């Protein structure tokens, strides 16, 4: 059974004359426990697709089925609960709370997920240990280096033991050595926990390490490649499904 199934998803930004099709009839099937790279240039819609798959964004058309549940049909509150239980994020610019301690940063998802106080400590320390930051648990996050901040972000992402881990350009702000360590942490988590890892990137080296690559161009799936060598053209999966309400995409740079 597919863990994530995106069917005919269309997302438009702006209104009327300024309308811009960020996603146009996207169809992607992501099996359980695979690593996926969403690859494309700026404005190709890769971040929008990630937001749509995580329920952060609401496409006006299509279905996003995660674990058998169409999250586009859920109420906002239920999507929030769903996300706090099953998903986690790592961002290019870390988004760690600089004035807070590492411990408190990692604690946040558990608090949001209503994990009882007494069960938090062990989980937080385990997450910090797995990224090698156990020594810095009570240091302020702003005193960490860039690589350490991203490791902290990974600890924060994995502490809630998500089934799906989204990483938006996770190595974009890091040098290649540090970036490689971060990549290893992400892939290790996915492998050890049989979790789905979805990496948004324009780095082809990073993309090639994934089981599956989804190439996006102008809001459409250009092609999907899998580790076993099969390459799927969009026609094969979208045939007879795509509707183009606005008559095709218009290219507008967004970032």
């Amino acid at each position, binding site marked *: 059974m597919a863990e994530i199934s995106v069917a005919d998803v269309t997302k438009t930004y702006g209104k009327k004359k300024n309308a811009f099709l960020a996603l146009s009839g996207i169809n992607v099937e992501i099996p359980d426990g695979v690593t996926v790279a969403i690859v494309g240039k700026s404005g190709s819609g890769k971040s929008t697709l990630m937001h749509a798959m995580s329920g952060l964004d609401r496409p006006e058309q299509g279905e996003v089925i995660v674990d058998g549940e169409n999250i586009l049909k859920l109420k906002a509150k239920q999507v929030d609960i769903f996300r706090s239980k099953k998903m986690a994020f790592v961002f290019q610019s870390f988004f760690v709370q600089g004035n807070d301690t590492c411990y408190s940063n990692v604690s946040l998802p558990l*608090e949001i997920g209503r994990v009882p106080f007494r069960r938090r400590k062990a989980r937080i320390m385990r997450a910090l240990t797995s990224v090698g930051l156990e020594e810095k648990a009570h240091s302020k996050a702003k005193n960490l280096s860039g690589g350490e901040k991203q490791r902290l972000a990974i600890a924060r992402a994995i502490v809630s033991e998500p089934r799906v881990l989204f990483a938006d350009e996770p190595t974009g702000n890091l040098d290649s050595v540090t970036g490689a360590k971060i990549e290893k942490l992400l892939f290790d988590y996915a492998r050890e926990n049989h979790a789905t890892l979805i990496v948004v990137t324009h780095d082809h080296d990073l993309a090639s390490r994934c089981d599956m690559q989804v190439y996006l161009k102008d809001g459409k799936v250009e092609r999907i490649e899998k580790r076993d060598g099969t390459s799927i053209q969009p026609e094969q999966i979208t045939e007879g499904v795509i509707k183009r309400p606005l008559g095709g995409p218009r290219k507008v740079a967004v970032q």
Partner: protein
Amino acid sequence: MRRFDIMRRAARNLKQAKGRTFLTSLAIGVGAFTLTMALAAGQGTRDYADKLLKNNVDPQAMFIVKDKSLFQQGGTIGLREYDPDVSTNSSGRPGTTIKQLNESDITYFNSRGDLTNVIPTYTLSPKWVQFEGNTKKYIGSVDYYDATILNETKAGTLPTLGTQIADSDATIPQTYAETLGVDAGSLIGKTVSITFAQQATTASDAQIQQAFAAGGTQAVQDLLSPQEKTFTYTIRAVTKTPTMSFSATPRISISASSARIANAYQTTGTTSSGKYSSVTALVKSGSSPDTVKADLESHGYGAETAKDAQSILFTIVNTLQGIVAGFGLLTLLASLFGIINTQYISVLERTSQIGLMKALGMSKKAIAKLFRYEAAWIGLLGGALGAAVAFITGTLANPAISKALDIGDSQILEFVWWQIAAMIGALVLIAIIAGWLPSRKAAKLDPIEALRTE
């Protein structure tokens, strides 16, 4: 997210912006300070007034006049029909006339079953006062002994509360002993002579001729010059000046019946003879002063109970307190905009944090709550800060204020913990209301937009 976790996060967020938090809560603190002071001053003044009245007025005491207009603003002004009972009151404002009580009224009060200790207010104006062993003549005030108050004595003894002193006795205030330059104890048992004068009488021609025939020029002079009479009393006690007194003027006290005799002598031949502007009485226990008051009013008298006197004082106190509290509320209003502004800026500064929390699955409601709790903490901090500063300065200033106002051990600033707690509680609530708009903005923030910043 659990309420406790949200509260903790809110407190931590504020701690991370110490300067801003402190300054915002300081603004509220100023309001809280003013309000605490207003509350304390109101409470202290009310309590002082209460003590003052309790020391001076028996709760059963009743003040009765014939003329209800006495209780109205400035008495009655205008043209009224002549009434033999109406006399101009020299001590009042010129032209003010008041109806006076006469002996038949006193008899009526005494005949009522619910009044005791009916004592007309005898106005005694002695010409001079002399003390045994001292040839000098002094001017002093004389009053009748009020059995409803038990004063402290410096020397000598007083009868138990509610009992009059003997008709031959007198008490003198401590300050008189000081003026005389003698020890208070040495005055006990000595006599005090009080000389009253009758008003000069106008004699008819026939009376003058008769006097002249009888005793010559001297007799005529005697007839026309004011008559004087000296009453002598034994000093039984020297009283301390009570701090809780309405009238700061120290007076010699003689018994009510002695005062009656002296007053009768003093007013002989004048229109004031046998007439009194007011009467004090005690309502017998078992009867309610309010019922008696209503009944007296239905008989055409004006009456005021101890409670009425209290309510007049309290009205003044409450008005003053209201004015001070009003300023406090204005300050608070200003500080509310401070909270709104600070929280708005805080939302703008923390868009990425809000976006992240949303991405992690924090609900809109929880995010709104987080910001409202931050506002609540600011309110709590400001309220506690203002109240604490007010409490400390108030407690330190109290002795100086009491000394300056000469009110003895009483304190004008009285801090009541539940009033302060209620005020801080109200501040927290107000702060939450002020935090409403910014918290809504935070909750409505688009997480995708928010995560794009930086």
